[in-house]
C-alpha cells in the first residue's frame, strides 16, 4: 500500500511538472482494496481493471519502472507508451488493462472466465469497477451471464461513494450493492475497504469458492477516494469535512496502528519501509526519465498482428 501511495503522490507531482499528461486518476485512499484482493490471487489468475488502476497494476506485481515509463509515454512503458495512465497492460501477470470505458471491462472478464471454464482450467478472473459502473447495462448483462453460466469471476465493486461528482444516492435507486448481486442469484458480501486485512480475508474466501466451482462472487468494498476524481476536478460535490472524516480511516494508518500494537512493526522498520519505497519510486522515475520515445515510424504497428497470419 505504501508503495502505491508514494508512487501516486509522485505521479501527482509529475503531472504538475507535465511529465505525465492526459487523464490521471489517483487511487489514494483505496489502496487496501487492490492490495488485499491481489494477495488472494494466484499468478495465473487474470485481472481486469479500470482507468484508476495504478494500484492494481503495482499490487499485481507489475514493475513500477514500466508503469512509470508508461505514464511518461516512453516505449519502455508496459504498453509501449501508447496507453498512458488509463491503459496499463501486462501479459506476464495477465493484467488485461486499464479499461477507460466505465463497465467496459466487465464483459471481458466474463469471457476470460468462460475460456477457463471451457478449457477446464481452475483459474479465477478478478474484475474491478466502481459503484458508478453498476448503473451501466454492461454491468447487469455481465453479472447475469457470469451467474447464469456459473463462471469463475470475482466481481470487485470499489464503492467510493462517488462517480465523478455523482453520489451513489443520485445514481442508484437501491444503494445496497449486495441486493443487486442477489437479484442474479450471486453470493455477495460487503467488506470494509479501508481495512486491508478484512479485504484480503474476504477475497481469499471468495476466490477459494470461485476456484472450487462455486460460481461467481460479488464483493462490495466500502472505500473512499481521498483525492479529486482526476486532475481536473474542482470537487464541488463533496465537503472538506467528509473527506477529512474518511481520512481518519486511512488504510495505511490503520495497518500501521494494528502492526504497531501487535508489535509486528517497529518504528525503525516502518521508517526503513519508507526509505525502500522512496528508492523504488525514484528508481522508477529515473527509469522513465531515461526512457526513449517509440519511433514515429512504428505508429502503424500492432493495428493488426504481425505474426500468425
Amino acid at each position: 500500500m505504501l508503495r502505491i501511495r508514494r508512487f501516486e503522490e509522485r505521479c501527482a507531482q509529475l503531472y504538475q511538472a507535465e511529465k505525465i499528461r492526459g487523464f490521471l486518476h489517483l487511487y489514494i485512499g483505496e489502496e487496501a482494496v487492490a492490495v488485499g484482493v491481489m494477495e488472494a490471487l494466484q499468478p495465473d489468475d487474470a485481472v481486469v481493471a479500470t482507468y484508476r488502476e495504478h494500484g492494481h497494476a503495482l499490487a499485481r506485481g507489475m514493475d513500477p519502472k514500466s508503469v512509470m515509463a508508461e505514464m511518461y509515454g516512453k516505449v519502455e512503458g508496459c504498453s509501449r507508451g501508447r496507453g498512458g495512465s488509463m491503459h496499463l497492460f501486462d501479459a506476464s501477470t495477465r493484467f488485461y488493462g486499464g479499461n477507460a470505458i466505465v463497465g467496459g471491462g466487465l464483459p471481458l472478464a466474463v469471457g476470460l472466465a468462460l475460456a477457463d471454464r471451457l478449457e477446464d482450467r481452475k483459474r479465477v478472473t478478478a474484475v474491478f469497477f466502481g459503484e458508478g459502473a453498476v448503473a451501466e447495462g454492461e454491468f447487469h448483462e455481465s453479472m447475469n451471464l457470469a451467474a447464469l453460466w456459473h463462471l469463475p469471476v470475482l466481481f470487485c465493486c470499489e464503492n467510493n461513494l462517488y462517480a465523478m461528482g455523482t453520489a451513489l444516492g443520485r445514481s442508484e435507486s437501491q444503494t445496497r450493492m449486495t441486493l443487486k448481486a442477489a437479484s442474479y442469484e450471486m453470493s455477495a458480501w460487503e467488506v470494509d475497504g479501508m481495512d486491508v486485512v478484512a479485504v484480503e480475508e474476504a477475497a481469499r474466501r471468495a476466490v477459494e469458492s470461485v476456484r472450487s466451482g462455486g460460481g461467481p462472487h460479488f464483493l462490495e468494498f466500502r472505500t473512499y477516494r481521498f483525492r479529486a476524481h482526476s486532475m481536473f476536478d474542482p470537487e464541488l460535490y463533496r465537503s472538506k469535512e467528509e473527506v477529512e472524516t474518511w481520512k481518519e480511516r486511512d488504510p495505511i494508518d490503520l495497518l500501521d496502528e494494528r502492526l504497531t500494537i501487535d508489535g509486528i512493526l517497529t518504528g525503525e522498520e516502518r521508517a526503513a519501509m519508507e526509505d525502500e519505497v522512496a528508492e523504488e519510486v525514484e528508481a522508477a522515475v529515473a527509469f522513465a526519465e531515461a526512457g526513449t520515445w517509440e519511433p514515429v515510424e512504428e505508429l502503424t504497428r500492432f493495428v493488426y498482428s504481425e505474426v500468425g497470419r
Partner: protein
Amino acid sequence: MTDVMTKTRTITYREAVREAIREAMQQDDRVFLMGEDVGRYGGCYAVSKGLLEEFGPERVRDTPLSESAFVGAGIGAALGGMRPIVEVMTVNFSLLALDQIVNNAALYLHMSGGQFNVPLVIRMATGAGRQVGAQHSHSLEGWYAHIPGIRVVTPATVEDARWMLPTALSDPDPVIIFEHSGLYNSEGELPEPGGPVDIVSSRVRQAGSDVSLITYGGNLPKALAAAEDLATVGVSAEVLDLRVLRPLDTEAILASVGATHHAVIIDEGWKTAGISAEIAACIAEQAVWELDAPIRRVCSAEVPIPYARHMEEAALPQVSAIVAAAREIVG
C-alpha cells in the same frame, strides 16, 4: 463464377456457412459458437441447425438477449486463448455491442503495445429486402469498415460463405463476417475439393471492358443481372466483388476502373459517408484521370427502409437503376 474444370457441388449459402462452422469446430477444440438462439432454436436463419446436437450446449452456446455482454465475452474468451465464433443475429442488434467491438476488440492490440491480440470472429446477418421494417433493415458494413483494428468481410458466393470462415478463424485479429440475409436461400456451385480462401482480395466475377460495376455481398447478384442486361444492349460490364471491405482491395478497384474508365458503385448501405463513398474517394484520389465519365453510386435511398414492398423496392438498389447508371455514363 467458379472454374468450370473443377468438380462442383450445388449447395445453399446457408448450408455452406453451416458446413464451415461444423468443420471448424471439429478441427479445433478452441472454436465454439455463441449467440442468441444458435442452439435449441437452430439459429434464427437456421444456419446452426443440428450443431447443438453434434457439439453440445457448451460449444453451441445459447445466450440471453445481452448483445454487449456476449460480444464482450467473445472478446474475453479470445483473449483467454479460445477461437470464438460470436453470432449477432443481425447487424441491427450489433448497435448494442458497438462499444465492445470498437473500444475493446479493435483497440486492445495497439493500445497494449502489441501484447493482446483478439482472435475473434463475429458473424452477423445484414441487409434489407424482406419487408421487415426500418429497425430490421440496416446495412452498416460501411460503419465497420471505418474502424482500424478489425477486418470486415462480406461473402457473396457459396464458396466464400464456405471458405472464408477458416481463414477468418486463423486470423489473429477480429474479423467481422457479414452475411446478407437475402443470400441464405440462394444456391451456388461449390468447387470440390475446396479450401480456405483469402480475406484480403477482391474478385472479378465477370470480366468486361466498358464499365466497372463495383459491389459486394447481397448486391452481387443484382450487379451480375445488370451486367447481363447491359450485354444485351452492347455494354460490356465488369463486375468486381469486393469480398473484403476492410482493408479495401484498392489496387483491384483502380485496375478495373483503369481498364474500363467508367465506374458504378452499388451498395445497399446509405450513400452518405458509406463504403460507396470510400470507393469513389479512392478513385478520385488515385485514378481520377482514368475516368471518362463521372463516378455513379447506386445505393439505398437516404430514408429508413419502409415495410410496404413497393416502397422498400423503391428504397433499395435495383437492377434497373444499375443498368440506367451504367448506360448514362457509358453513353
